[in-house]
């Protein structure tokens, strides 16, 4: 047989065709009694419905966690989770934290060294010493 095919798997490029939001679940924990949850309780009462409405992609779970500080926990498609303690925060600050969890990819934070990362080959190609005019020493 002259040529065989090699089986491969296509690689996802999120956002090239469709965009899948990476945050799939947001857990909100609060305490009814403790003062550190005051902002969280106000957030749950007044701002969470609007937040949930404009982010239908995220499954939202609210559950009490008595005698503990309030916590936001985001679960991501890559299997990781991120938790933020929101004790003594105002509702507006908690909304900022919730947006931060929503926009995160779930990966560990790392420094982006290159301005562009791409799966495509470079158009220009790799420099070769054997092409072009040869320099004599």
């Amino acid at each position, binding site marked *: 047989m002259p040529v065989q095919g090699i089986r491969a798997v296509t690689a996802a490029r999120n956002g090239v065709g*469709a965009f899948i939001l990476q945050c799939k679940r947001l857990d909100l924990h609060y305490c009814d009694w403790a003062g550190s949850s005051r902002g969280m309780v106000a957030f749950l009462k007044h701002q969470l419905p609007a937040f949930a409405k404009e982010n239908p992609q995220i499954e939202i779970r609210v559950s009490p966690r008595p005698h503990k500080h309030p916590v936001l926990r985001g679960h991501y498609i890559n299997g990781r989770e991120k938790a933020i303690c929101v004790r003594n925060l105002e509702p507006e600050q908690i909304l900022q934290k919730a947006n931060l969890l929503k926009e995160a990819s779930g990966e560990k934070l790392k420094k982006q060294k290159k301005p562009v990362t791409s799966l495509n080959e470079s158009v220009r190609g790799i420099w070769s010493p054997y092409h072009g005019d040869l320099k004599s020493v």
Partner: protein
Amino acid sequence: MKRLQLQQWSGSALSPRARPACGRLLYAGLRRQTTVSSTTTDAAPAADAGVATSRQLAQAPVLAASSQMSRRLLPSPPVEAARESAKLAALHARLYLPSRFPLETLARTLVHASADPNADFNNQSLATLGDDLLAYYATEHLLCTYPRLPLTVVFAAMYAYVGKKTLAAMAREWGVELAAAPGGEVDPGLLQFHRITPGTSLNTGPITGTTRPNDDRTSWRRGMTSRVVYDDHFGEPTMAPGATQQSTSNITPTVTAEEASATFVRAIMGAIYLHAGRPAAKRFFSQHFLSRHLNISELFNFSQPARDLSRLCAREGFESPVAKIISETGRKSRHPVFVVGIFSGKDKLGEGAGSSLLEARSRAAVAALKGWYLYSPLDVRVPSSMEEDGAAPWKPVYIDPGEVVV
């Protein structure tokens, strides 16, 4: 071009039918598939589906009273549970599914046939339709974009676009979670299937019961041309329908997570086609499948590229290829580099660098062959683009004689 009438042939997948009494007499008739409210329309708005659900809840007070207990007896979640699931609504929004695509159907696509053998409640029919659609759209894209690809590479590229592994990876990247075990009380937003027992061997020797004649003769050659006729779109033998039923009738069927996830993605494709129509299905395919990255030039595995190239030049009437050294360095050293070009007359067909003359020549021949096989015409149109309204007249696409026969 004549339009297909959805109603005439998709009735079994869309019509509301009662679950036949199969050992669960109490629930026979209480559980209905309500993906679509009536047969007059294939595009039920979400409000209609909700009305249908509430009507059936009123019909079944027994079920509502002891719903938690009765749900445990069902093999898969009841239809009315779809509206209560947050996971399901989130998945619907995450995939940007059209609003005409009801949550009840989304719940049905998540039930594999191994979890619920009843064809009215599992995703088998939707997956069959979705598989055909995926194969059709992927095939026409590949054949029109790369008309000269060898058949083996077409099979490999098909596997890369719509193969089992890719579909399972897509389901994972969509955030679909797997249920530990199927059941009526499980959240309908989880993918439900019976898992294969750990330690089961997946490679069970030669496959028999396929659609091929003489498939018990394992030593017989399976030629490329016969794969087009007998096998599926990846060049793999397809099981005859009678054979699969016999083998799975006595024991509970179990599948791998990969197979169940792939079936789910196929079923989503079929369900979008049925509920939202052809343009939406095509858009979903281009957004989720074609947008993925595949470098087709990495799918080739040549065994004798120089021989293939000389055969190709003879067939096409080019001058026979000659390899010439373009430049070299360090011939007597420990790491020499030769740059060899393959010329047909005055035209350079390909070029390659290697640490020996033979290696450089075969790399150059591979480059020349890939340059031929990966030809792609400009302004590619696929046959399914003729189904759009106001499509321009069809111009025949480029058809190639095919790969070189050695």
